[in-house]
């Protein structure tokens, strides 16, 4: 309620320029203090390092300014351990006086600090894809310009059913919340449209080898959806080809199964794999071209899922803080401005927010193509203004349990 009325006020008069004129002028000399929670050590470091690279590349491109203010980026390494994430968050908020937070990387980290950031009214721009953050556990001081776990899966399921005419599919995913939510979202839309998920395989996150799982995959399938994180998508795909299944069954990947971080390593095996994401480095908008060039120049890598997030967040922040005339002292105003803004020109394309703080934006269906020894996730279809609730009614959607290992129930499994 509070949010809505605040937004109402903003819309009905108090524009950004009015604020700067009437309010206390922001002291432009003070840097904007951004707490950046990432993982730079331990097994999750790969994504965390890319996250930081993405942020640094964007800042470099934008002369280290967000909303007209100099940025002081305070990077904290959480080691991917929630208890440490919490301590580091406290450090950023209480000791270093962060104006806002970006991150953290993993869903369980984000959940571990959610209550704290809420209690401290700390505007937090989320990156971790977990459905709780913007659905049942939606927080007031939270906005996620990237996507929920299921957002791209919904689209992909529809694409598989409608465009690829798939009817029988299997899902395979890492056995943890992110994997579950991606597959469950896929399963729901695919089966609601009339398709059947006939097999569901959930290898442990730290599976030493996928051979045993690949041997179990049915052969009479139209496609396989992969909900993998980290390097698992790459390892699975390689094993899939080793077992001679490559090219026989269409592979379809969620947000990270064919991430840029592993795309080149997968080599020729990757060609033809379809995936869904809110971003892809081959997008033609000028912001993205500049960003990709910067990433290539500085880190010799295309930005993927982890690197693009901070750049999108930064653009959203830039728009909101510009609108506020650089003033970020009021967390309520900051977060409501962020959420009520429509930002036309992030690297992923236009971004606006729903009532729960989740971005509504384009979801790209991509297909790996190969030219000159380099793999590219090429966009084959764009779904515009995709909500995290897909075409479902948000209120109805939220009456159901959050996507999990056991919900929705897979009714068509064949054994």
């Amino acid at each position, binding site marked *: 309620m509070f949010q809505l009325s605040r937004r109402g006020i903003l819309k009905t008069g108090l524009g950004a320029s009015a604020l700067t004129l009437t309010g206390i002028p922001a002291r432009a000399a003070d840097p904007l203090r951004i707490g950046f929670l990432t993982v730079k*050590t*331990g*097994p999750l*470091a*790969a*994504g*965390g*390092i*890319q996250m930081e690279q993405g942020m640094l590349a964007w800042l470099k491109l934008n002369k280290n300014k967000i909303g007209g203010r100099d940025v002081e980026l305070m990077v904290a390494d959480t080691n991917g351990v929630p208890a440490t994430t919490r301590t580091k968050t406290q450090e950023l908020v209480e000791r270093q006086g962060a104006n806002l937070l970006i991150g953290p990387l993993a869903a369980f980290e984000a959940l571990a600090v959610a209550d704290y950031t809420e209690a401290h009214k700390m505007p937090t721009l989320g990156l971790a894809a977990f459905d709780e953050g913007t659905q049942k556990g939606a927080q007031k001081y939270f906005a996620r310009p990237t996507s929920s776990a299921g957002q791209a899966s919904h689209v992909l399921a529809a694409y598989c059913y409608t465009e690829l005419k798939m009817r029988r599919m299997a899902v395979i995913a890492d*056995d943890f919340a992110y994997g579950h939510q991606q597959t469950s979202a896929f399963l729901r839309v695919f089966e609601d449209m009339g398709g059947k998920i006939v097999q569901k*395989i*959930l*290898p*442990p996150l*730290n*599976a*030493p*080898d996928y*051979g*045993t*799982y690949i*041997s*179990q995959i049915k052969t009479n399938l139209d496609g396989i959806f992969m909900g993998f994180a*980290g*390097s698992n998508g*790459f*390892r699975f795909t*390689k*094993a899939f080809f*080793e*077992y*001679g*299944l490559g090219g026989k069954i269409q592979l379809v990947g969620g947000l990270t199964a064919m991430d840029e*971080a*592993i795309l080149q*390593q*997968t*080599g020729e095996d990757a060609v033809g794999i379809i995936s869904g994401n809110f971003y892809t480095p081959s997008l033609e908008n000028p912001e993205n071209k500049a960003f990709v060039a910067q990433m290539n120049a500085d880190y010799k*890598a295309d930005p993927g899922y982890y690197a693009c997030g901070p750049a999108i967040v930064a653009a959203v922040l830039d728009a909101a803080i510009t609108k506020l005339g650089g003033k970020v002292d009021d967390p309520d105003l900051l977060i409501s401005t962020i959420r009520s803004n429509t930002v036309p020109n992030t690297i992923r394309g236009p971004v606006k927010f729903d009532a729960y703080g989740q971005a509504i934006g384009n979801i790209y269906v991509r297909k790996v193509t190969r030219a000159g020894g380099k793999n590219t996730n090429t966009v084959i279809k764009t779904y515009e203004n995709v909500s995290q609730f897909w075409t479902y009614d948000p209120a109805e959607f939220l009456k159901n349990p959050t996507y999990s290992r056991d919900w929705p129930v897979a009714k068509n499994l064949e054994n």
Partner: protein
Amino acid sequence: MQFWIIQTLNSLAMGGLLFLLSAGFSLIFGLMRIPNLAHGGLFMLGAYVGATLLGQSLPFWLAAIVAGALVGALGVILEGTLLRRMAGNEQGQVLITLGISFIIADLCLLSWGGDPVPLAAPRGLRPPVFLAGFAFPGYRLAVLGFALAAALGLWMLLERTRLGAMIRAGVDDREMARSVGIRVSRLFSAVFFLGAFLAGLGGVIGGPILSAYPGLDADMLPLALVVVILGGVGSLPGALVGSFLVGIIYNFGTALFPDFAYVILFLPMVVMLVVKPTGLFGRAMR
């Protein structure tokens, strides 16, 4: 039927890989009573070094041996400078090797970054082999063959050479070995070299299947532990049988009882430790 055949093949291929991983761990554990928690780190380091060597277009098998030798040399240095002083202090050894594994993991991350680094299998072994109507990865069969060859080589080394005789004597009874004039310190260096060499070599050979990535060490170390606990400490046949056993438990276990995938290897380990703490082939630990 096909399920059983292919899972059996999977089990054997994985067992081969596990043998390369755990033979060195078992040797060091058995002879020196050092639970080398850095073994996973050495395996991972081997994989990364191997990937770099392959990038310099070294032939695969040469890269494997060079990487193994480099990791082996590192092992000798670590043993001589840090671990030897800790003889008999198991807790100290546990912590030092754990510290080493932290450092190896962090420096690998620094040197090779966080993205997975693939290792290409030798070209001829890449395509799948077709057996009675279904495909099986050729390279995995090669790994199985290589592991069996390595087991044979190690067996020859242990049973047919003077070094092997000394190692066996040391595993059986360290005091006895010392009293018959074996220079235990040099023997330990040799064993540590061999153990670390096998870890590094295993890392490269396992590379085309596993690839090198941060966390590979932490994924592999528990497997080595389970193999050695099941097979018995310091026993080569134990490591071989333990490896195949773990391969079988893992492949059939995760297929038949998917809900237990996260604990499928540790439950048998607990059972073995409780029922027969020396493992299948091990002798009593002091």
